[in-house]
C-alpha cells in the first residue's frame, strides 16, 4: 500500500505540472480556442486478445505548427490525457484502469499520425467467480475479490487524421501498442501488453491553449 500511496503522490505531481504548463503563457505563441479531443477505443490485453474498452479525454496543452523546408506542415500536440479503461480476461480477472499522464502527437499534412504517451494511475481488479474467505473459526464467507494496484503505461501510436483531407470530418483513427505495468503484484509487478484500435474526435467544449508557429528555413 505504501508503494500505491507514493505513486499516487507522483501522479498528482505530474497532473499539477501539466496543469501549470497549461496556464503558462508565452510571448512566442498566441492563445487559440480548441475543442476537447476525446477517443473511444477497443483496448485488449495480450495484444488485443482479451477484450476491453478505453475512453480518453485529452486536455490539450500546446500546439505547434512546424513548416518544413518543403513547405509541408507538421502539427505537434502536447496533451494531458485522462484515461478510463477496462479489460476482461476470462478465467483470470477484469479490471478498471484510471490513469493520466502526458502525450505528444505529430500529425503530418497528409494526415498520418504518430504519437507517444506515458500514463500513471490506479486500477482495481475484479476476480471472476465468487471469492471465498475462511474465517479463523472455519466459517466460509464470500468477499469482493480483487485488489487495488498502481499502474504505469507507455504507448506508441500510429493513425490517420481524416480532417487533413476534409475539414468537415473532425475524425481520426489510431492503433496503439501499450505495455502497462501493474504493481505491486505479489511482491513483483505484472506486465500487460495492451493493443488499442480507436477513433478520436472533438467535443464542442472549447479551451484556450497556446499555439506556436515555427518554420525551418
Amino acid at each position: 500500500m505504501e508503494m500505491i500511496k507514493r505513486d499516487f503522490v507522483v501522479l498528482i505531481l505530474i497532473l499539477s505540472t501539466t496543469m501549470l504548463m497549461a496556464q503558462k503563457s508565452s510571448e512566442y505563441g498566441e492563445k487559440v480556442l480548441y475543442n476537447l479531443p476525446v477517443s473511444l477505443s477497443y483496448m485488449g490485453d495480450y495484444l488485443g486478445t482479451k477484450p476491453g474498452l478505453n475512453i480518453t479525454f485529452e486536455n490539450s496543452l500546446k500546439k505547434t505548427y512546424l513548416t518544413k523546408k518543403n513547405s509541408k506542415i507538421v502539427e505537434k500536440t502536447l496533451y494531458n490525457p485522462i484515461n478510463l479503461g477496462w479489460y476482461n480476461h476470462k478465467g483470470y480477472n477484469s479490471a478498471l484502469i484510471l490513469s493520466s499522464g502526458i502525450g505528444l502527437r505529430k500529425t503530418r499534412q497528409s494526415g498520418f499520425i504518430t504519437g507517444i504517451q506515458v500514463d500513471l494511475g490506479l486500477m482495481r481488479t475484479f476476480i471472476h467467480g465468487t471469492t471465498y474467505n475462511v474465517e479463523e473459526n472455519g466459517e466460509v464467507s464470500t468477499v469482493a475479490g480483487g485488489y487495488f494496484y498502481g499502474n504505469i503505461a507507455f504507448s506508441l501510436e500510429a493513425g490517420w487524421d481524416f480532417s487533413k483531407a476534409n475539414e468537415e470530418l473532425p475524425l481520426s483513427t489510431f492503433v496503439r501498442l501499450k505495455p502497462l505495468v501493474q504493481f505491486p503484484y505479489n511482491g513483483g509487478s505484472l506486465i500487460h501488453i495492451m493493443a488499442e484500435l480507436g477513433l478520436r474526435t472533438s467535443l464542442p467544449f472549447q479551451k484556450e491553449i497556446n499555439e506556436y508557429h515555427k518554420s525551418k528555413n
Partner: protein
Amino acid sequence: MNITNQKTKVMKTQILGLFILTIIFLSSCSKDEALISSDANDLFAVRSNGNDMLVKVVGNTESKVIILFVHGGPGEGSWIFEKNIEQLKTHYAIALWDQGNSGSTQGNNSGVFTVERYLDDLGKVVKVLKTRYDDGFKFYLMGHSCGGGFSAAYLAEANNQDDFQGFINIDGAHKLKSVKDYQLIELKKRADIEIAKGNTDPIWQEALDFCESHNEITTIADFSALSLLCGDATAKIDSVNLFTLIDPTTFFGNYSFFSYLSNWSSLWAKEDYLKEIFWETDYSDKLSQITIPTVAIWGGFDVNCSKQLMGEDYINLVGSSDKTLVICEHSGHYPFVTEPVEFTNAVVFFIERTK
C-alpha cells in the same frame, strides 16, 4: 458559471456515467457457471494470506468425484497439468488450484513465503471446495513434485486425510531437502549410461562436468541450474516420449501467462523460503501417519525426482495398507504430459477401486 460550461460539465458526466454503467453491466455477466456437468468449467477464488487464489474445477462433475491437484515448482501453477488432462477430465472433475504467489494467483502485497503458509492455504482450499461441492462428492488429493511433498505433509496433520478417499502422488518429493542431492546422483548415473551407450549429445558431458564440479549444492542458483539441466537431459533420453510445455495456447489462452511468469520470478527470488524447502524440509517421519489408499505414479526416467530414491522410499514409508507404485516407462518428471493415456488409466483404476 456560464451556460456553455454547465453544458460541458453535464455532457462529460453523462459520458463517464454511460461508460461506467457499460462496464458494470459487462462485468456482471460473469456468474458462477453450472456446477454439475459432464464438462464443467467452474471458477472461484479463495482468499488467504493476502492472495486471491484461483481454483478452476473442470471436467466431469457428474461423476461426483473431484481430484484436487496440488502443483509443484514451487510456483509452477496448474497450467501444465491443465493442458494435459483431456482424457482424465472425461472421467472425473479436477480442481486446479494455483497456490499462493503462483500461476494466476493475485494480490497487492509482498507476500508470505513459508511452508506453513502453503499448508494453511491448502486447508482453506479444501474447506471451500467441500463447502461448494457438498452434495455427495468424493475427493482425492493429487500432488506433483514438491506439491506431492506438501500434500503428504497436509494429509499427515490432524484429521485432514478424513476429507479424502485417497492420495495420488505423482513424482512427489516428501524428502524435499534431499532433492538436490538425488538430482546429482541421478544425473550422473544417467550421463554415465548414455555416454557408455555411445550417445554423443553434448548435454551428457555437460551433465558429468556439472556433477563433478558440484559435490554439494549450496546455493539457489546452483540448484536452479541443476534442476534445469535435469529437465533438459530428460528430454534427450530416447526412451522418454517427446513433449512440449509451451505453445501459442499457453500465451493466448485463458490462463494469465504473464501472471505465472511474474509470480515465478518473485517466488524464486525468495531465498529464505527456497532454503526452507530444499535445505530443511523432510516429511519422511510423517508418512507413516497417512493411512488412506495411495498410489504413487512415477516417471521411470525421472532425473529431477528419483523413482528409486524418492518413489520407492515413499511407498516403503507411507502408512497405508493399500499402496501401489505405478511406473510410466516412457516418462521423466511429467508422466501426465509424456504418457497421458497410461497416466489416466492408472488414476482411473485407482479411483474406481477406492471411491
